């Protein structure tokens, strides 16, 4: 049985506790990186993360890109949508196809 967690600043994530996700509030970057590593080594299949935090942990997240688990999914936090989540998906398309053919219309 695997677990699911959400990482980010407290205000953005406490609501998810009611859904049954494990909430892991982190603020500082080094601490966040450590926590991410710990969660990835444990039985977490899905780790949601606020876009703001995901932005500061790019390298750490990239290390898990090729692994089946955990899936690290950026979600918008309480302080608004930075568009990083959608940009991430757009990057997949660019990587696979060579150019962005799905989001082309709304990227500008």
């Amino acid at each position, binding site marked *: 049985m695997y677990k699911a967690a959400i990482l980010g600043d407290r205000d953005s994530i406490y609501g998810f506790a009611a859904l049954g996700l*494990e909430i892991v509030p982190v603020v500082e970057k080094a601490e966040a990186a450590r926590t991410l590593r710990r969660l990835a080594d444990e039985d977490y299949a899905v780790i949601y993360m606020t876009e703001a935090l995901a932005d500061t942990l790019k390298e750490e997240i990239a290390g898990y890109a090729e692994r089946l688990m955990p899936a690290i*999914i950026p979600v918008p936090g309480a302080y608004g949508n930075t568009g990083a989540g959608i940009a*991430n*998906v757009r990057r997949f*398309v660019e990587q*696979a196809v060579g150019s962005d053919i*799905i*989001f082309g219309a709304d990227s500008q």
Partner: protein
Amino acid sequence: MATHVNPTRMELTRLKKKLVTATRGHKLLKDKRDELMRQFLELVRENKALREKVEAGIASANRDFVLARSGMSDEAMNTALMAPTQRVYLEVATRNVMSVEIPEYTAQHRSADQGDLYSYGFAYTSADLDDAIASMAGLLPDMLRLAQVEKSCQLMAAEIEKTRRRVNALEHVMIPDLQTNIKFITMKLDENERSTQIRLMKVKDMMLEQTHHYKERAEVAARTRMEQSG
């Protein structure tokens, strides 16, 4: 041609075999890339739709939570959410799509009743919190589906990139290189064959000359003809 190739028959057979394998590999990889691409595009469209839905859902849930917070003290809020009744566990299965392992999540809930979301008594909390939690709860299936689809997209995108590189390397480097090498060897062998042929013809001429003395005889014949006429 940068590398040196031995113009031998053995090398030629080896290269021809390699070319057959390379061509076959190229075809297979191209098929793999096309099929992966088709599935990826389908999945990424779903990913986009799901993400938009989830992001909109989270934004509206966050608004509800802000509203709930404004009606309650922080302490009351924290106590209310301290011990959640629900806990999600995931069962992870993997599916193999064109040699890419993609995950499939099945959610298991701790409490059997999925509507059992409220970890607090209703006396000291505002009704807005109930609404906020209810709006959040509707998001969970979509969020899990998003996680599954997005991870799959990520893994497939990496594999497509790799496959595309291989296809291109075969198509534009390996196969043309092999073809030039094969051509080079064939030409060289043909050239050798021709030169052997010529050498044999020359040797034959020389041997005939040696046994029959054609030249000498021709000279003698010419001299006698001249003497007769002169």
